[in-house]
């Protein structure tokens, strides 16, 4: 690894430590709150009969004391074991499919994402969590271990490899990618590159706008208007939202993955984080002239010799091409060179 690479890795570690630190500090504060001295004298005097409660539990003998007083981490973890196992299992599947560059496993991952993270658990990373990060309103760590596992995997994987979350973990992204795979390819409209490049900026505009809206109004209730995946709850049925969702789904039939590529504010947030990406996709020297991958990339993430990390969702399409000895010029040229050399050698001998 190069030195800048290592610096990025340290940044990744720092980010995850920050996240975990934020969570544990909120726990610490809640404990401190519990130890606040009881009623001030003035207020206590107003009480009709201030029965002095006994020191511990006030004689109530509650089955389970409040969380601050008797930590029962084992119980909490046991209660969440199924969810944690689901997230861990799914993540293993997602990353095995990612590292093996297997097409079949990738589709298994996408289906699993829609079914488990989408329909069954609705475990999502949302713009609401970006608001939470800004306003200190993240879910409480101890009670939401599965969600935090997903959040840490999302952040750390984004720093290490880029928007893997968008490419194969997010249930809505998985859903539109599966749509893309099932709908006839001839319905597909390939929009011109110039427009595509500009449209990719829309999501940053949306991110800025909703974050500004949140910071000004302190109201996070803007999320259903910018995030269609809350439809997994099948509950937000206002005419405006249904129209927005309908328009988006119809658009997606023609412009595949339109939401992820152009509109998603969370994708924009992860896109900003992905500028730090440590392990980037390697490029051959031939990539500066060859355009096969650039044409193949459905995410508009390849521009000439460069891969635009903020748009790349690590779908593996170009990496599979690099490895393909029948299609990638890098291998074709090498093979031809070898052939020529072999022929020359044979001629020389003759």
């Amino acid at each position, binding site marked *: 690894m190069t030195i800048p690479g290592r610096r990025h890795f340290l940044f990744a570690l720092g980010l995850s430590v920050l996240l975990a630190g934020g969570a544990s500090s909120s726990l610490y504060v*809640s404990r401190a709150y519990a130890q606040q001295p009881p009623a001030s004298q003035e207020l206590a005097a107003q009480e009709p009969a201030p029965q002095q*409660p*006994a020191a511990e*539990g006030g004689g109530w*003998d*509650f089955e389970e004391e409040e969380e601050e007083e008797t930590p029962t981490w084992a119980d909490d973890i046991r209660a969440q074991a199924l969810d944690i196992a689901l997230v861990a299992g799914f993540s293993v599947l997602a990353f095995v499919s990612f590292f093996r560059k297997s097409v079949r496993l990738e589709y298994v991952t996408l289906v699993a994402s829609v079914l488990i993270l989408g329909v069954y658990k*609705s475990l999502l990373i949302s713009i609401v969590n970006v608001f939470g990060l800004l306003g200190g309103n993240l879910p409480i760590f101890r009670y939401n271990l599965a*969600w935090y596992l997903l959040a840490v995997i999302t952040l750390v994987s984004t720093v290490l490899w880029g928007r893997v979350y968008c490419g194969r973990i997010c249930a809505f992204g998985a859903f539109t990618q599966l749509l893309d795979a099932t709908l006839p390819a001839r319905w597909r409209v390939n929009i011109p590159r110039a427009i595509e490049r500009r449209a990719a900026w829309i999501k940053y505009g949306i991110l800025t706008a909703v974050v500004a809206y949140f910071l000004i109004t302190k109201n*996070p209730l803007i999320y259903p208007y910018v995030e269609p995946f809350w439809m997994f709850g099948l509950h937000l049925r206002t005419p405006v939202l249904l129209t927005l969702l309908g328009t988006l789904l119809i658009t997606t039939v023609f412009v595949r993955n339109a939401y992820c590529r152009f509109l998603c504010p969370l994708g924009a947030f992860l896109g900003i984080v992905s500028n730090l990406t440590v392990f980037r996709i390697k490029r051959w020297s031939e990539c500066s002239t060859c355009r096969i991958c650039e044409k193949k990339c459905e995410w508009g993430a390849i521009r000439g010799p460069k891969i635009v990390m903020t748009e790349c969702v690590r779908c593996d399409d170009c990496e599979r091409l690099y490895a393909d000895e029948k299609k990638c010029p890098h291998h074709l040229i090498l093979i031809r060179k070898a052939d020529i050399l072999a022929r020359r050698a044979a001629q020389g001998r003759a």
Partner: protein
Amino acid sequence: MKRLAIVLSLLAATAALTAAGAQNQTDARLKRLFPAATTFSPKAGDPPHVKAYNGDTLLGYAFWTTEILPLERGYGGPIAIMVGMDTKGILSGLVIIEHHEPYGDFSIDPPSFAAQFKGKDVRDPFKLGEDIDAVSRATITMSSAVRTIRNSSRRIARAYLTPPSAASPSR
């Protein structure tokens, strides 16, 4: 100058009306929790609460979960719930005041959620999937809402109610 005075007085009137409206709303909610109550005390104490009276008899306590446990959080932040509890530690009901939960619409907003808590004893376990119905796809919201109701009720009970253990230690 005159214009400024008009604008200021209009603003003041709006603020007063809003405040009065909020007070009316609070009164209506208190009445829902304690239909038999004739008067309510102003909010006071630590933990803060409102006392409900029928004449001179104390019917119970109403309190706001976010005032007792300000650090409890769901998916999108604190879930404000107003809870009513009688003098024996039986919940008389609850009203969802405010929240920012994306899946609130099918988890804590339906009246069936609040209805489950009416008549619950503060010593009940309050466990999702056991004595409270779990809602799939809204685990974070549901667990936070139930936790905040349970823990704030327990804190109020510990502070203001006579523990029944002396009378009936078996419970």
